[in-house]
């Protein structure tokens, strides 16, 4: 799944602009990714200017 480092994130919305399924919701100082909608295409990781987003393998429970 896609993870956001909220300490680094500036909430600029570049990721939301490229997200093909509109699963990223922005607040003034928060960001939420709807993991049910997310297709893990990683476009948000590529556009993030500050490397605040990363892909982590699904955790097996």
């Amino acid at each position: 799944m896609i993870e956001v480092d909220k300490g680094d994130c500036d909430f600029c919305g570049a990721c939301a602009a490229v997200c093909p399924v509109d699963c990223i919701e922005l607040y003034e100082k928060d960001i939420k990714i709807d993991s049910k909608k997310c297709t893990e295409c990683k476009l948000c990781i590529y556009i993030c200017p500050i490397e605040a987003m990363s892909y982590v393998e699904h955790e097996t429970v």
Partner: protein
Amino acid sequence: MWNTKRYDIIVVGAGPAGSTFARIAASKGLSVLLLERKTRIGVPVRCGEGVIDSGLRLFYEPCPEWIATTIDKFCFIAPNGSSIAVKLQEKGYILNRNVFDSDLAKFAEKEGATVVTNANVNSLLFENDKVAGVKGICNNEPFEITSKLVIGADGVESRIGRFAGINTKINLNNIDSGYQKTISGIDVDRNVCSFYISNELAPGGYIWIFPKGNDSANIGIGISGKAHINGKSAKTRLDEFLDLKYPKHKVESISVGGIPLSKPIKQMVTDSVMLIGDAARTVNPLSGGGIILGMKSAVKAADVAVKILISDKEPTKINLIDYQKQWMNSEGKQINRIYRIKTAVDKLTDKDLNNIIERVNKLPVEKRSLARIFRACIPQKPSLLFDVAKVFVGY
């Protein structure tokens, strides 16, 4: 209370486009609610802040507090370090966008618009399958407000369009990853904007140095979304550049964002919804400048919206489409042309760029104009170049 009234128009986003729209619509007697997600309008700044004097004057008499410095020269630096300076035919400014944006919202308020900050719109309100307002959260309280028309002025990450069923997706080729630091304690010419054009430094974009006074500047980078896939991020690239060029700089603030560099959006309106500014991709796709273009889209959209609402017509897609038509016959057409140039410029290698600067340097100084530089870039299409020259920054 602002959240219990019914409005003619709700404008989402108090940037230059949203506030300009709100000001015009309110001045014509319409009830307007201007919603802004941020706590303080204009903060944080997400912009290089460059505009051309004549562009700004189309809308506002420049106010001294808005202007950090006046620009009279551009300097282009080639990958090999050689450079050319070009005197501008008209002056430009580096703005203080925090003051500028805040004043523009105040102008809208003065004309009668209600301005509310901290208001996060998270969906549209539908009645009988028709857009009838917005829903959101303000200071942890949910709100639902009805209006005849909703204006999406909510920036590059615009969701209003998506909520209304407009395809606003932007692919990685058409958006730059932008990262900027406002730094101080550096030696910088306060009247010159510099551009480092180099695929090695900034693939699919450039590094800009926009002075903000005697010892400070906005120094930023745009790289194409594609360039980051197998390479360094915008942040890493800019930090490397700053450490090399200005090892003793002090960071005042950091600004991050996606810069839309696309063709005009295919659909700018739908029933009861219009998109303006970055949300409608009203940005010069070569320079990334969008302040003046955003306000132009606001004026065109406001003229159409006001006419419809004042004559009690329904703001249907068919009635609102005049805005899109007008845009595509003027600035939209120009953006299409600049997009074609961008596509050509994107193909230039660092060797090509070095050659171009060398060629221009052979021209006598008095003959060096932006138009000639672009002509040197793309010799086969000189007719396109005057537009680009005029619009490189802030138009």
